[in-house]
């Protein structure tokens, strides 16, 4: 076995480490297992109601998960980098309330109020980011403070009054359609698409994982372990504000009640999707499965006339199962691999190092 693995092939083809492949497949199945569960759940609802796989119902599911989903995208990026934003629900409520104040009390034009409300979310995100990334405060404590603080601020400013009557143009944000697809769903798809590009196709994705898995290594290698999470906190605050505005548009009412419980829904979706709570491991596709799982479960249980409490129970149970699988996977990962080949450094075979110009020249 050792000899076979050590033999160097001329074409530079690496000998794969076969002994580990089954474990690795299991690891990939972390997000994958949830996709299977999602398909089974959908098939079950389809079989029991007949109306699950209709275009209108699937669009309802998309619309239902859109706010949760768009906030979960930066949320997953934060969690995988060892960060956490528990303030998103309250920030959504604060931004919605501020939009009402800007539009109705200050009489700003709708678009200016809209941008102002987004800026409120971005500012709160900046505060979270600076406190956590640059000043080294605990993300749980800072954003738990934000969870209480943003809600309290919103209630103080609005005196707990709901404003309404923002006009039909603003209503389009929540209730309009684009080519038959609800506008919030379109926004979610766009946010997820951009997020997936950033996660999988740019250096940001691997840098976030590196920061979450080994912060010291990230620092030593020049990965921006402070700036990057700070930027994601800002994005998190901004998408939370956007989510709050979408709900405001759906209800035509700016209430501080908007966004209540959003942070736990977001966290549940991300954890269901297999992002490790301690950071360093996870995927955005898994997070999408987590988002859709919650949406399908809620929708399907309503279709088969089961109350919303059962949906919460089912989501909770699924989360515990996911956590159990996570522990199991980590145990398996630690099993020593019997046949791991030592790197065969052969002194006699070390040829002169050739450095290609791009390698040497490519700086930061």
């Amino acid at each position, binding site marked *: 076995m050792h000899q076979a693995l050590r033999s160097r092939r001329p074409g530079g*083809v690496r000998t794969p480490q076969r002994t*580990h492949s089954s474990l690795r497949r299991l690891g990939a199945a972390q997000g994958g297992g949830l996709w299977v569960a999602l398909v089974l759940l959908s098939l079950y609802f389809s079989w029991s109601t007949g109306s699950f796989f209709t275009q209108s119902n699937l669009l309802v599911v998309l619309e239902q998960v859109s706010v949760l989903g768009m906030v979960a995208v930066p949320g997953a990026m934060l969690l995988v980098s060892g960060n956490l934003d528990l303030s998103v629900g309250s920030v959504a409520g604060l931004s919605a309330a501020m939009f009402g104040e800007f539009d109705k009390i200050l009489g700003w034009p709708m678009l200016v109020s809209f941008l102002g409300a987004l800026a409120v979310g971005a500012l709160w995100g900046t505060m979270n980011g600076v406190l956590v990334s640059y000043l080294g405060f605990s993300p749980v404590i800072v954003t738990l403070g934000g969870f209480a603080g943003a809600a309290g601020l919103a209630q103080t400013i609005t005196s707990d009054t709901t404003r309404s009557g923002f006009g039909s143009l603003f209503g389009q944000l929540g209730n309009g359609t684009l080519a038959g697809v609800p506008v919030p769903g379109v926004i979610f798809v766009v946010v997820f698409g951009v997020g997936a590009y950033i996660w999988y196709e740019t*250096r940001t994705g*691997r840098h976030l994982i590196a920061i979450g898995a080994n912060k010291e290594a990230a620092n030593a290698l020049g990965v921006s372990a402070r700036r990057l999470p700070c930027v994601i906190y800002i994005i998190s605050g901004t998408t939370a504000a956007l989510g709050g505005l979408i709900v405001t548009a759906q209800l035509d009412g700016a209430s501080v009640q908007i966004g209540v419980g959003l942070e736990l829904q977001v966290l549940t979706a991300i954890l269901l999707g297999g992002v490790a709570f301690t950071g360093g491991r996870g995927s955005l596709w898994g997070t999408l499965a987590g988002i859709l799982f919650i949406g399908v479960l809620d929708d399907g249980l309503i279709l088969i006339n089961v109350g919303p409490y059962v949906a919460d129970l089912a989501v909770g149970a699924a989360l515990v199962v996911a956590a159990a699988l996570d522990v199991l996977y980590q145990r398996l990962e630690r099993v020593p691999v019997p046949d791991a080949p030592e790197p065969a450094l052969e002194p006699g075979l*070390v040829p002169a190092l050739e450095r290609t110009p791009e390698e040497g020249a490519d700086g930061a």
Partner: protein
Amino acid sequence: MPDVRALEVTDISKRYGPVVALRGVSLGLDYGEVLGLVGDNGAGKSTLISIISGVNRPDSGEILVDGRPWEQAGARTTRAAGIETVFQTLALVPTLSIAENMYLGRELYGPGRLATALRRIDKSRMRGEVEQAFDRLGLTMPAVTSKAGSLSGGQRQAVAVARAVLWGSRVVIMDEPAAALGVAQTEAVLGLIARLKAEGIATLLVSHNMEHVLKVADRVAVLRLGRKIADLDLRERPVSGMELVGLITGASPGSPG
């Protein structure tokens, strides 16, 4: 080779609260030279390395890279200047693949202008380059898509050393590079140091193993309690392991070189 030094640190001091880690240490490193750095635990080796590699900043002192004053601005700029470090902790991310670890912090964009403008990274090219680099270094490794966490200790060390050798175009710092390696692989790492030397790259080798240091180093600097107490040129006169141990432990007083 121009007669500027690859790296020169002058009068570096660093304290952590009441603990003085370095007191006015000066060290020079020529291109194509291997400098062994030895000292007991707590002598200041790791602090000095963290300062040169850009992870920490000195309280006072000057650093010259290629004869020019060098303002420490973090690990990123240090690496961009061609100074690479094999940390004792190896600085690998277990949940990223071998190729991702090799290119962490210096990912390649592309292919093409559009992809570069969109900040898209060229995964297949990076994987290919890593495979080629392992071939050139004579390293047989698992697939470059394997996660670093699935590797054995020796394999991890090999990845960390290969990364520094691949990117270090001016100075390579190795902090105990052979700690987890067997006999044959240790020989190979020492062989790599000889190759770096032949390429004109300056190497700073930190090791507790006097035999290794004396085998490959051109000079040996000894740190004790934050001071450099000796700087011996092995090309001028042979130095024994016993002599080094005497300097390290304080049995012989030494003289700042």
